[in-house]
């Protein structure tokens, strides 16, 4: 009798457990999907049905990969197989943002965390998926706003450089027009040699390319682009920016010197944005030095590996330094000490550097100059070819 009671009680508990488990699965806000070690779906809760548009009956026993877009769909079986052998987890126990595929084919982003249960032979995997779409929409709007602001500010910096840029384009145009005129006159004078004309034509071509190069550099910065981060050699980036800002400096009788660390590790950045920051800092340095006197005419741009995973870029000027009353407001938007400045350059620069996982700082000795430095995380194992 007693034994019978015990069995009843156990059954009741077991039933309760199943009911509780069912309640737990159905009440969960996040989608819960359990698969076996071959990837076949064992459990598909109500939130999952809602999220993916499938009824549980439609997917139970099916391979989970149909809920993923390519290339993950094709690779998933291999992942599972490899995991059985190597036990090297790519996602299990970690969790990350992935794209998921709705029944109607649309893709949406989710935060996926995966846990492993059971033993080696009868193991299964529990996936919990949190929908990020709603969150993303808000973030996306903010992000777009910020990108517009960044672009706006970049155009502002370029606007300040108009005189220098126009000069830089006018020089080759002047040379081209004058070379062409000389050519025409030589031909009219009859006494010309074909080789002489060919030589001048070659010079014209070189000057046209020179003008084109200025425009290319400009276009890269002026065009609004989708933020794209890729492996970048900061030394090369510095050289490119110095070419662009150099004219402006030159017109103001200022030299830009680079002091670059050789074998600088690469960084993963949006290179247009980092160019923008550097350009901004150089522009500020030029402005700070325009009436500093003839012996103070050098801007130094230095790259340094300050730790195995951090690179620091410094822009050192010999200008008037930063006035005490500006120090606290320096990075606040719309505070400017310049007659025509909008005062968003430094604030945008800091936003850009921070979003790259770095920081932007400055040191200033009034009357002697200011140094602005930013650091960016590097990829330690990859080295650039610069010697």
């Amino acid at each position, binding site marked *: 009798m007693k034994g019978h009671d015990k069995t009843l009680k156990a059954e009741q508990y077991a039933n309760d457990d199943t009911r509780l488990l069912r309640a737990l699965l159905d009440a969960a806000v996040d989608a819960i999907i359990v698969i076996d070690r071959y990837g076949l779906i064992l459990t598909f809760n109500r939130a999952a049905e809602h999220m993916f548009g499938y009824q549980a009956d439609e997917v139970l026993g099916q391979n989970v990969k149909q809920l993923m877009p390519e290339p993950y769909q094709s690779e998933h079986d291999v992942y599972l197989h490899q995991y059985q052998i190597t036990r090297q987890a790519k996602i299990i126990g970690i969790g990350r943002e992935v794209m998921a595929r709705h029944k109607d084919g649309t893709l949406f982003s989710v935060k996926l965390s995966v846990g492993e249960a059971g033993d080696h032979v009868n193991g299964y995997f529990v996936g919990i998926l949190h929908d990020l779409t709603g969150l993303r929409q808000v973030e996306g709007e903010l992000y777009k706003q910020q990108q517009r602001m960044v672009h706006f500010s970049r155009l502002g910096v370029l606007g300040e450089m108009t005189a220098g840029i*126009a000069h830089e384009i006018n020089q080759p145009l002047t040379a081209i027009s*004058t*070379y062409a005129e000389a050519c025409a006159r030589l031909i009219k004078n009859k006494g010309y040699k074909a080789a002489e004309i060919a030589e001048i034509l070659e010079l014209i071509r070189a000057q046209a390319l020179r003008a084109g190069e200025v425009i290319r550099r400009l276009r890269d910065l002026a065009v609004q682009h989708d933020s794209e981060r890729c492996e970048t050699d900061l030394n090369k980036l510095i050289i490119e920016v110095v070419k662009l800002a150099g004219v402006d400096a030159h017109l103001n009788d200022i030299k830009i010197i680079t002091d670059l660390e050789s074998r600088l590790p690469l960084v993963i950045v949006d290179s247009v944005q980092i160019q923008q920051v550097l350009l901004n800092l150089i522009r500020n340095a030029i402005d700070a030095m325009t009436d500093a006197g003839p012996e103070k005419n050098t801007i130094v741009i230095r790259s340094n590996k300050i730790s195995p995973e951090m690179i620091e870029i410094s822009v050192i000027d010999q200008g008037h330094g930063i006035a005490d009353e500006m120090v606290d407001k320096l990075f606040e938007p719309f505070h400017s000490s310049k007659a025509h400045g909008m005062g968003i350059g430094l604030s945008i620069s800091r936003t850009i550097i921070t979003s790259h996982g770095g920081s932007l700082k400055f040191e200033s000795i009034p009357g002697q100059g200011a140094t602005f430095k930013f650091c960016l995380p590097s990829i330690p194992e990859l080295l650039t070819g610069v010697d």
Partner: protein
Amino acid sequence: MTYSNATIFIIDDDQAVRHALSLLIKSVGLTFSAFASAQEFLQHYTPELSGCLVLDIRMPGMSGLDLQQQLNKMGSTLPIIFITGHGDVPMAVEAIRHGALDFLQKPFRDQDLLDRINDALEQDAGNRQHMVEQQSILSRIASLTPREREVMDMVVNGSANKVIAIDLNLSQRTVEIHRARVMEKMQARSLAQLVKLVMRATDDQ
């Protein structure tokens, strides 16, 4: 063009512009000399140079404007044609105020530049002619005795011989002799010509 010793001095820090201008000037049969900086030209400069300057207004180190002012201080009369970039109009106005012949905005019509060079050479030749004449008049004046000089100044001021004689306490006859010597030494055939010579000698001194 007939300005035998005239040289076009091209001063521009941009190698390509400098070279193209040299070729253009060579193609019309003029002599040129090109310099990459204002300092480089100053080292080369002597008062005997004739011709004109084609000068870039913006250059690192010494600007075109600085060079113009330096040359003015040194008494140079070489005409200057400025070539200017974008947005240099205020500087160009400054240059004109200091006596520049003209300014051309880059990129310019080459015919315009050649025309201005022609004007400049004409002006320089005129200046030089004027200077030679002035020198000659000044040396004639220098050959006068102090007394003759006194008499000439009074004659030119319109005083009659009688008045000069009284003022200088001389006999009228002596004044007439001095006056004749002045006309001879100054190579003037009439009073009007003498007045003109004296005015030219003191012109922009």
